[in-house]
């Protein structure tokens, strides 16, 4: 199934599980989004910002020394790390904030984990002169201090969230609560392909520029579509963004989740690998939960993957077998981080390092004529302190 049905379901997953207060706002958003999609002018405006402001298209780069080291399939990197603000997140925030402007909203709020989505939202809010408030878990504020400072420089209010695990999940709870309170004036800019309908489809559409470009670039550079696409999955926006244009191609998709300290330790964020079906943050999808349906606390070295839920379309892909979901530990991700830094001179985000590590292992098992594209979703500047602490 290509799109969600009219209730926002991808197969058995998705829907709208939110307080009644938000139901009218979701309908309003759905209508505004459909209207914007139908307008050529909206698409052109967004494209021009993506090009001249964010820096699209991003290169598809052949990682020769990484390929050599892995000793098998050719590894190409889709360089989302080169975008303005340092990650793929800006593709989505530009789209959503433009939409917010069309809807006449004067205030934008967002949740953030690693801070990349927060920075991207604050950036675009600054660009358009909108009031901006970012909700961020106290734990993440500690480990992503640079991004917090950036958001403040951009004149966003950063509100620390001290409930629960003090990470992305709790930031999202607080953002939803704030949206319920200010729903009439405020636009909630969700950063992943998660949340209630229409967010999963809208964020997917805004991020699908990654895959559309990569597909054209593949045909140009190696005259065929790739054999494998690898991307990290927290909520799953960069993965869905690169997968989607290849949906009907004979390409194998691998989503790489965070195995944290190990899948057997209970300290991981591998929602699709180890979770079960439930409802969290507005949609039905795989989640990490205990026997009583309480949400479990995720763990990952990378704040952006540290989330006990996942976008509903990924759950649908898991069930249909369209994508395979695997997991990589903190330690392995650090290995991927070092490998890419030392061999290619590219310092990747810890999130993307999960995909890099898995791709290098996958390449080894494949013949040299095969091609793998890795979505390098972000750069690692924000993670330097964490890496310094553990390497």
């Amino acid at each position: 199934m290509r799109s969600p049905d009219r209730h926002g379901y991808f197969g058995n997953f998705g829907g709208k599980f939110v307080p009644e207060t938000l139901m009218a706002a979701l309908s309003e958003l759905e209508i505004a989004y459909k209207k914007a999609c139908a307008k050529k002018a909206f698409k052109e405006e967004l494209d021009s910002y993506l090009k001249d402001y964010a820096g699209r298209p991003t290169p598809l780069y052949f990682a020769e020394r990484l390929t050599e080291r892995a000793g098998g399939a050719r590894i190409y990197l889709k360089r989302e790390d080169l975008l303005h603000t340092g990650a793929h997140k800006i593709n989505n925030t530009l789209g959503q904030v433009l939409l917010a402007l069309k809807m006449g909203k004067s205030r934008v709020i967002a949740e953030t984990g690693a801070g990349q989505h927060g920075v991207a939202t604050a950036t675009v809010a600054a660009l358009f002169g909108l009031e901006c408030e970012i909700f961020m878990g106290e734990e993440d504020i500690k480990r992503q201090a640079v991004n917090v400072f950036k958001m403040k420089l951009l004149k966003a209010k950063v509100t620390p969230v001290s409930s629960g695990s003090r990470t992305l999940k709790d930031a999202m709870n607080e953002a939803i609560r704030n949206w319920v309170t200010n729903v009439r004036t405020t636009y909630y800019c969700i950063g992943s392909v998660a949340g209630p309908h229409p967010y999963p489809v809208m964020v997917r559409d805004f991020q699908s520029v990654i895959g559309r470009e990569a597909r054209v670039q593949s045909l140009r550079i190696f005259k065929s579509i790739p054999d494998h696409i690898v991307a990290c999955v927290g909520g799953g926006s960069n993965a869905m963004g690169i997968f989607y244009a290849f949906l009907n191609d004979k390409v194998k998709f691998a989503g790489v989740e965070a195995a944290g300290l190990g899948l057997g330790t209970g300290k991981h964020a591998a929602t699709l690998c180890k979770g079960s079906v439930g409802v969290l943050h507005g949609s039905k999808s795989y989640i990490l939960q205990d026997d009583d349906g309480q949400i479990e606390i995720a763990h990952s070295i990378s704040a952006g993957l540290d989330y006990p839920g996942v976008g509903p379309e990924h759950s649908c892909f898991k069930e249909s077998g369209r994508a395979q979901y695997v997991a990589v530990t903190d330690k392995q991700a650090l290995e991927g981080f070092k490998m890419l830094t030392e061999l290619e001179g590219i310092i990747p985000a810890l999130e993307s390092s999960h995909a890099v590590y898995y791709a290098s292992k996958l390449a080894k098992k494949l013949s040299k004529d095969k091609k793998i594209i890795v979505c390098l979703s972000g750069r690692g500047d924000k993670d330097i302190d964490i890496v310094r602490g553990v390497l």
Partner: protein
Amino acid sequence: MNRIDKKFRELKREGKKAFIAYITAGDPSLSVTKRIVLSLEESGADIVELGIPFSDPIADGPTIQAASHRALAGGVTLKKIFSMMGALRKTTRIPVAFMTYYNPVLKYGVEKFVKSCKHNGVDGVIIPDLPHEEAKDLIRCARREGVATIFLAAPTSTRKRIKDIVKSSTGFIYYVSLTGVTGARSKLPPEIASNVRAIKSMARKPVAVGFGISSPGQARDMARIADGVIVGSAIVKIVAANQKNSKMLILKISQFTKTLARGIHNA
């Protein structure tokens, strides 16, 4: 007849409005919860809304979030709450509605959940993150077992949505007084009266108002507008402040309940 329906019918005959008191189950412990319910009944509450704690209560403000957290930290589970309810039913006839989020219900099993409600004397369910569109399974099972499905209507609900909410609801309709989460407010929006009137014009079912109502004066004012008044966070605050002294806790809740009940019943 469902105990909630029966209660509203009784009150109507007496020309009175319903006082619905919320507490979180297991805060500070299930044995104290039992005593609080009995004390609420004795002190004039008409219906008890019993919160089933969830780790991520997106519709709740800080007071009830903290109560849920305390209850979960104390090891409370849905199973334990059901068995407490079963025991409580031997000594009380006060109508009880569960208020919880959808995930614990889904995990327990929707059908099994409704059957356990019936079996243990839970008369209705309120699930704030489950709009009626997503509630078909729940409604089907609940109708069969005679358990009330209480849906929420909000200030932002369209006329069309309110019509569907009215149709999906049994027991009563829960009108959310404001755009926001639960928690005491010093001021409530003036449009409550006209919104409640609009809902009542579409429903031959009771409409109760909740969210933000904390003082006896507010409760009395709301009772003049609606068929029922829900007070939660203001009661939970008393529980929070008297965690270690259950005697004091019960005494204070009883005093507060009596004041609220007087205001609501004499409105």
